[in-house]
């Protein structure tokens, strides 16, 4: 080979390498790719997320952990994108379970149960959620599973046979939902979703018009600590309002109206809260006298 030809070959090879033709994705690169994929998912760029998660899942150099992350990402993207593809999500969750290990299985079972719920297969979903709670009782996923399981009993369902288009749950079904959460709270009182569980129980008791029990659970939720502003605003108002209107417990009402004023002095209900505070104080004075 002449010098010129040799130089040309070297030049082309260098250009090809520079253009990325010779690039091999290493473990570190794959982690970066997964980060990019999750970021794309969280910012709503689902096409990009699906593409990159699929590439990462199919990469032969991926570690077991990376493959778990990629498959979970792929299943999550199919499941929760704005145009979900539940059958592909199901396939990916099943593939995830085949990886073995607790973590992939927990995510898989929870995801599959949520798909069943979305498809109206309540019985299958409930079985899966119960299994998850039984098999992995101390997991975070079991806490979430308890909430979905309770909701599956209490949630109204679409029913075109009804004039309204919906079938309401019976009181027994609602009590069953409440029981699921109470069992979970009894076995895992300090779980991080305990506040949400008490709020959900209180909601059911409000629907059932069992107001003393509703307030008890709202107070327990408050004790557990409710972080979100929206949830907290409603919690304080509810305790005060139900205490005033249904329980005639003006002391409790006053206490929670006062807390509302302290915590949310500019929130939309503040004027009603201040008026109510005046009213319950007057009622308390009248009672005492």
């Amino acid at each position, binding site marked *: 080979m002449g010098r010129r030809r040799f130089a040309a070959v070297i030049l082309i090879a260098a250009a090809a390498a520079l253009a990325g033709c010779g690039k091999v994705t290493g473990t570190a690169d794959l982690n*970066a790719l997964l980060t990019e994929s999750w970021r794309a998912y969280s910012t709503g760029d689902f096409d990009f997320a699906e593409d990159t998660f699929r590439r990462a899942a199919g990469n032969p150099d991926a570690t077991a952990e990376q493959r778990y992350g990629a498959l979970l990402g792929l299943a*999550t993207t199919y499941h*929760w994108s704005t145009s979900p593809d539940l059958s592909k999500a199901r396939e990916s969750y099943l593939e995830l379970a085949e990886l073995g290990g607790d973590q992939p299985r927990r995510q898989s079972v929870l995801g599959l149960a949520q798909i069943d719920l979305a498809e109206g297969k309540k019985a299958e979903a409930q079985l899966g959620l119960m299994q998850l709670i039984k098999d992995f009782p101390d997991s975070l996923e079991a806490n979430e599973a308890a909430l979905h399981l309770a909701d599956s009993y*209490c949630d109204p369902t679409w029913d075109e046979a*009804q004039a*309204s288009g919906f079938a309401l749950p019976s009181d027994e079904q609602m009590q069953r939902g409440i029981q699921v959460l109470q069992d979970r709270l009894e076995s895992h009182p300090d779980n*991080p979703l305990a506040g949400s569980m008490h709020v959900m129980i209180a909601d059911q008791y*409000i629907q059932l018009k069992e107001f003393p029990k509703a307030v008890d659970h709202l107070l327990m939720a408050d004790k557990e600590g409710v972080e*979100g502003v929206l949830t907290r605003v409603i919690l304080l108002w509810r305790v005060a309002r139900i205490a005033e209107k249904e329980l005639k417990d003006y002391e409790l009402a006053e206490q929670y109206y006062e807390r509302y004023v302290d915590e949310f002095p500019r929130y939309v*209900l503040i004027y009603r809260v201040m008026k109510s505070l005046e009213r319950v104080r007057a009622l308390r004075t009248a009672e005492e006298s």
Partner: protein
Amino acid sequence: MATPWTRLKRYPALLLLIIVYVAACVVVIGNVIRGSGGAPGTGQKKVLRFAHWQLEPGIRNAVDALIADYEETHPDVEVRQILIPEEGYFRWVNTQLIGRTAPDMIECGLGGPVAWSLWPKFYARYFLPLDRYVEQPNPYNKGTQFENTPWRQTYFDEMDGGYEDTLQSYYRVPLSAFTVRLYYNKDMIDEVWGETFPATYEEFIELCEKLVEHGEQRGRELVPIAGSGYNFRQFFQTYQAAMTAPYLDRLDADYDGSVSRVEAAARLYSGQVQMTEAPIRANFELVRELSDYFPQGFMQLDRDEAVFLFLQGYSAMITTGSWDYQSLGVQSEFQIGIAEIPLPSKDNPRYGRHVAGPRTEAGIRGGFPMAITRFSENAEQALDFLQYASSLKKNEELNQAMYWIPAIRDAEMRKELKPFAPRIEGYSTALNYDGPGVELAYNQALPLYLSGKISYEDFAEGLYEAYRRDAPHGVREFIRNNEQTLAQQMRFAAVRRAAIAGAPGAEAAMSGDSELQYKSLIEVYVTQVASRANEIRVWAESAAESAPQTPEPE
């Protein structure tokens, strides 16, 4: 042996081509070097571009002054305003974002119902989430009472105006706040009525009558209130909140403090609440009475036409927001006064007993919201500029210059703006008359009633028929669409759960503490699930109650 130069001389065309090519390269390289440093002559400065639709001269000058101050303390930065007219703003933003040519900072939120549904998608895709910054103090508050206060908590609304509910993240940096008031031609009102503006609805109607007479005496038509559909809504909503407040307690089945559109629609559908009930009828009769003092066909007029009528002296009053304070002042040849929309007094025989109080402004959120584009090369610098603009001192100066209400707590507003100070007292709207599915029928019937073409009885009957016909489908669609909100919560909870569960890349992709965020997302999810269940229950029970009864077999 011939040198390359000698060889080239044999091919003058090729020589010319090479010379032109080299010259072009020099020009391009020069432009690139200058472009990276900003405008010609600015050396190596970082250039921040800042797009908004506030074209009023006062606003532009005030922002220029803020920029000049910033550049003085940041000599390596140049900030440029890009002013885009309101009409084409959303289209422009859309194109710029998709083409990745958008400026570093963009004012967000304009565009109407279709655009409002698209903004959250834009935030998610093109803008920088600010969660990791809002809990840190604003460095430009050093030496003030907010030195150690998280940036978020320096806002009058705790930066609620920057929070995107659908994405559970902070994306916007609000710089101002706004309220709506009644502007009036003070010279004219002083002449016709006296110096004290009417405090009650009764006096207000009397004033309107006097204005009509005043116009007739001068041989020209004088319309008391410059109205368009937009301006009329301000009046309508004030009286709607004032007169339907008792329904807040009556219809709030789940004690969450509000009456949702479905809760209201269910009761109007079933007849548990009837349009002929005294407070509702009074609400409509009042606005019908008031509409006599608006221009003919006002529902079809747009906002600019109403402003024109007011500025030209054809009308004595107009409702609009504090954002127009300076521009109306500059453009008018008369003194402008500001007042609250007057409510009927308790003694008013027709309306008095139905008035609970004013419409609250307690929940208003910060406005003039700026977001930082994700692909900005100077995102950190843009953030720095917005922190500067939202610091206690600079936000006060900026808003004083713009004649707007500051977004930062304790920042002083101009004394002329005191009548715009947000009103904490009052109620939010309890009854939305245009329930899901009934919007079209309502919006067609209301102008007919207001213009006197149909009676109140016909209006109420027509609306009830529309509820019976259209609400079942509308409510179902509404509930189905809202299920997407629940999915949205789960979408974010899923990535947080993945991060907690150790999925590689998930934690690094998100800002903030995943455990805390996950807990908070689940709380919101539970609240929304409960709200949905309550709406369906109220709807289903109302539907069952109003279903035709099958006669018992004899």
